[in-house]
């Protein structure tokens, strides 16, 4: 089927199925804006795209929305299932509703914004990307996160930041419990500036950059010195 790209194209996911929708999205030239309708919780929508297009997802998406993407921007007018923005390389994914487990898992770059709540293991194994959640996050969030930033406007669940490496977490609300080797650290000027910048980028006006808790690795679980003087 040949679909002509219009400035605002529409793809009906129920009619086309996810493979055809993704193929269509991949074919669009940079700068195109497209609406995806009748989403009904399908998995793998918009994965692996490298073109700079604007994708509006109208409805609740399933697992791995925008996973592996390197370029496009997504706005989801609904909620998403597990692994939104998994292994994201660049681009912005904004979810107006809630996200299920493992939001932005292993994201190397880009920005994932959840306007509602995110469930367990948000930002697990984060590798340089940014996850910003307006509401709360579930248990085991930022587990083994290696680099990047998790910003939580609301509360964090149990075992926040367990086995953290170099990623940094900022929490506006309460932290139910910290995971192994995670510790609260004092906010420096650079931290306040970063939170301020993230709030501006995400539109989160309910977070006071001067009144958040910073969580980082206590660096007792892995030995930084082991890599001293080594070259990669």
């Amino acid at each position, binding site marked *: 089927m040949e679909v002509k790209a219009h400035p605002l194209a529409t793809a009906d996911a129920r009619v086309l199925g996810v493979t055809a929708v993704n193929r269509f999205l991949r074919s669009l030239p940079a700068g195109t804006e497209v609406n995806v309708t009748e989403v*009904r*919780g399908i*998995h793998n929508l918009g994965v692996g795209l490298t073109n700079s297009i604007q994708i509006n997802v109208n409805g609740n998406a399933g697992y791995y929305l925008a996973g592996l993407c390197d370029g496009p921007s997504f706005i989801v007018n609904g*909620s998403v*299932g597990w692994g939104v923005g998994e292994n994201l390389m660049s681009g912005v994914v904004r979810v107006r509703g809630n996200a299920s487990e493992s939001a932005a898992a292993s994201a190397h770059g880009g920005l994932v914004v959840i306007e509602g709540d995110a469930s367990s293991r948000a930002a697990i194994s984060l590798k340089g990307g940014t996850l910003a959640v307006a509401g709360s996050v*579930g*248990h*085991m969030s930022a587990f083994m996160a290696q680099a990047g930033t998790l910003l939580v406007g609301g509360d964090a*669940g149990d075992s926040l930041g367990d086995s953290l490496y170099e990623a940094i977490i900022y929490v506006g609300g309460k932290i139910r419990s910290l995971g192994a080797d995670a510790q609260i650290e004092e906010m420096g000027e650079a931290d306040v500036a970063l939170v301020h910048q993230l709030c501006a980028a995400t539109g989160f006006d309910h977070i006071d950059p001067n009144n958040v808790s910073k969580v980082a690795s206590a660096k007792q679980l892995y030995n930084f010195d082991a890599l001293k003087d080594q070259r990669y």
Partner: protein
Amino acid sequence: MCGIVGLFVLDPGLEPDLGKHFTTMLEEMTARGPDSAGLALYDRSVPAARMRWSLRSDAPETDWLGVLRVVEKGTGQPSNIEVIENIAFLIAVDDEVAVRQALATLTEEQITVVGVGHAMSLIKDIGLPRDICDRYRVPEMSGYLALGHTRMATESAITTDGAHPFSPAPDLALVHNGSFSNHASIRRSLADAGVDCLTDNDTEVAAQFIGYRMSLGDDLEEAMRHVLKEFDGFFTLVVSAERQFSVVRDAFACKPMIIAELPEYIAVASEYHALANLPGIERARVFEPQPEEIHTWTG
């Protein structure tokens, strides 16, 4: 993987369409469990002082009228039977022991009691969920509660007996997504207490455990709390009883579950797309049960 769906209808107007909506939900879970499927469906058609026996025959030709006569003779009460393919629903007097004894005299028919209850019909088979629903006319069934499972076997063989739901007691059914790591030791403790499992399946151990706890006087929620205490492994469990419906996830919560609440119904599923076609879903409060949080609804 495995897929779970459940639909508890609170608006009687939806009861005639329960089987139709439920079949769509179960079919949506095919990718999570394509090797076998099963369901427990509850309705109000069984007369007072009677019970429905969900039976299956593995013999090529079964004299179901003969089965009916044996049960009538054994119980001294008129009964009736509805046959669909190789399964039958026998409505007999509310005397579990007498019916079980009568059925036990049938040695050649290879009859298995899949479940029994005042409201429950229990169906399970090997194959694709949609094919199983069509084979046993599930889309035509009415009722107020249905619980279903699509299986991708990991811990025991693909057999009809290994398919879910498991029913350890009248009107009680359990489905499971996950795997238990200490089921062998709990199986032995149950055997010591006089409760025998009929299969090698890890899920059956949890079902028998809940049945055992409830026989000791636990209500459904207390029994679920004991599951959290005793069982090690990964699990999302959904249990249905005659007027109740309960969901729990283990401490890691790595097996999914999503709940939609509306005044008209409660629907649960492993993945959202199983709920996406339900009427009014856009108005529902949709949420995930938290780790070790037990959700129970009573109708």
